[in-house]
């Protein structure tokens, strides 16, 4: 089912958590709500679930206004960040809770619960009370409870937050398949950008100021709406260098390490403006001295990680710049080196506002004049 949020406002006493939030989620889509804590992601989920009511605005599910519709009538499955298992019921009864409400027969219920439990590998602990379950098992029980009635809308509130790193990694691999099989519209809340990138068809980046950007993981990663979002996605974090684009030899360039770095022609109108140049560490690569566009740097340290090697270097002006390359590929470990970048991958932000400057396509003469 599709979900449409329009101009949602919600305040608790004097604290406005959501001010004018609008968002639409298509049927069958997995939308990730990504952002720091306090951004109002959980509140948004609860509004959709119907356990709290918005102060203003409208929530429509499949076009139907949800105002005044009780949570039990919304046909939603939800997993809570704190699991919120029923402590006095065993795992089986917890998972069966959405089925008992639908008055299914005992045998059908048993079959469904066991199927979901097998899928989530908790079929051996079905008769344990929540306090006898490990954190990972609690999390899977909570997830199983959300899934058991095969709801057409699934709200997952940071379900991997309270589990250990190993399990989180496993679940990050398993969840996309699981969610795909559910055939449900999913809203997934997380603070982990990798989770967001791995699970979302689209990502909505939310901060205390509301929804900042909505887009596919690629869009968010390659064309972040502002420097804050650029910093939130990517590890190592994006290089942000203060530059002022200038016109040199018929090209738009920015000076990095006293060398002109060519930018896209579409940035012509930004000449002379104080900007921030965003360079993803993995879009930089080492080149031989003298090759076109080579920028001299001084290597500071090299950090080999499992799948990649991250090099911290200094430009001639002493600015730090990080370069990431796949592990095992050759590269200098110390001393002088040269790097080059792909003009298309560089992102330009306005220095005053931090907003991304979209490349504009227009005639060059007009811009120069």
């Amino acid at each position, binding site marked *: 089912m599709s979900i449409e949020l329009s101009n949602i406002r919600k305040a608790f006493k004097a604290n406005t958590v959501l001010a004018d939030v609008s968002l639409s989620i298509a049927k069958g889509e997995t939308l990730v709500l990504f952002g720091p804590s306090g951004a109002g992601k959980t509140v948004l989920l*609860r509004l959709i*679930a*119907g*356990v709290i009511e918005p102060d203003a605005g409208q929530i429509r599910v499949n076009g139907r206004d949800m105002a005044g519709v*009780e*949570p*039990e009538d*919304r*046909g*939603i*499955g*939800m997993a*809570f960040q*704190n*699991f*919120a*298992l*029923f*402590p*006095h019921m065993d795992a089986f009864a917890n998972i069966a*809770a*959405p089925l*008992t*409400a*639908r008055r299914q027969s005992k045998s059908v219920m048993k079959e469904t619960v066991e199927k979901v439990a097998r899928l989530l590998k908790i079929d051996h602990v079905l008769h344990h*009370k*929540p*306090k006898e379950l490990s*954190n990972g098992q*609690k999390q899977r029980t909570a997830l199983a*409870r959300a899934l058991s*009635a095969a709801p057409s809308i699934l709200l997952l509130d940071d379900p991997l937050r*309270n589990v250990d790193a190993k399990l989180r990694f496993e679940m990050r691999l398993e969840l996309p398949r699981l969610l795909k099989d559910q055939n449900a519209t999913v809203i997934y809340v997380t603070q982990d950008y990798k989770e967001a990138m791995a699970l979302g068809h689209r990502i909505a980046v939310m901060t205390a100021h509301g929804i900042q950007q909505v887009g596919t993981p690629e869009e968010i990663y390659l064309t972040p709406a502002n420097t804050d979002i650029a910093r939130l996605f990517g590890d190592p974090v994006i290089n942000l260098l203060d530059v002022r684009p200038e016109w040199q030899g018929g090209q738009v360039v920015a000076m990095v390490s006293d060398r002109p770095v060519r930018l896209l022609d579409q940035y012509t109108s930004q000449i002379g403006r104080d900007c921030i140049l965003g360079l993803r560490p993995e879009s930089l690569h080492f080149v031989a001295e003298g090759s076109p566009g080579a920028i001299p740097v001084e290597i500071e340290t090299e950090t080999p990680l499992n799948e990649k090697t991250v090099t911290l270097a200094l430009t001639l002006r002493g600015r730090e710049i990080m370069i990431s390359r796949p592990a095992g590929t050759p590269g200098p470990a110390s001393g002088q080196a040269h790097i080059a970048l792909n003009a298309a991958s560089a992102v330009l932000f306005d220095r005053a506002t931090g907003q991304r400057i979209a490349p504009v396509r227009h005639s060059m003469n007009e811009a120069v004049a």
Partner: protein
Amino acid sequence: MDTVSPIERFLRGTAITLVCLFFMFPIIWIFLMSFQSNETILRVPPSVVFSPTLENYTALITGKLETQAGSLDIDFMGNLFNSLFLSTASVLLGLVLGVPAAYAFARLKFRGSEDIAFTLLSFRFAPPLLVLLPLTIYFQQLGLANTYGGLIWVYQLIVLPLILWIVRGYFEDIPADIEYAYRIAGHDFWSTFWRIALPLAGPGIAAAGLLSFIFAWNNFVFALVLASADKQPVTVGALAFVTASGIQYGQVAAGIVLSIAPTFALAVYAQRYLVEGLSLGAVKG
């Protein structure tokens, strides 16, 4: 725990012994008294050496009090039944009324909810006599004086605020998410109340029930004014031991032992409810 110096340990031990002695001594003394005749109780100096007798208990159970001045009928067993019936019925009514109200005060923030809750609590601030004078007149006019129904109603003044405020705290301690999860799973408000809130507040409801039972049991002044002999609880009935030929200490002691027995048993039984944690590890800190 930190290492404790011998002196500190000695002082602590002494303090604990003194406190225990202070609280336990009257109970032990009463227990011993209940097996003695009036003569051995009143001898000077008092002694713990005596030949035990069951005559106090037999007098209470048979209802025949033998004094020097002659035989006296007392209805101690009837009083005991009255106490049991009045307290139990009051607590049950108090739970039926108070628990849903406590839930409403805990979960539904409606206009004036705090004021109403506080007003109910304030019944406990006023001296009971303040309410009793007008009540006596009304009760006589309404025909409620000297009826179990009337007494149970008045006992709500003791029981209801206690239940309301204790149980409300327990309801507030249940993470709202657990109830939300049950609602979202497709259950309506009432079944969430029955299946989630009530069982999880169980220990609190037991504690409130126990406490209010004890308060109701120990109440004196309501029953003294509003009930006559056949409806009187033990607290008022004990006055019968003050006879023309003196105070029957032995029977008073036996009466006290019998009358604290039910509350004592209840406290021992319900202790595990009071100790058992509420959340049981379902929600991660």
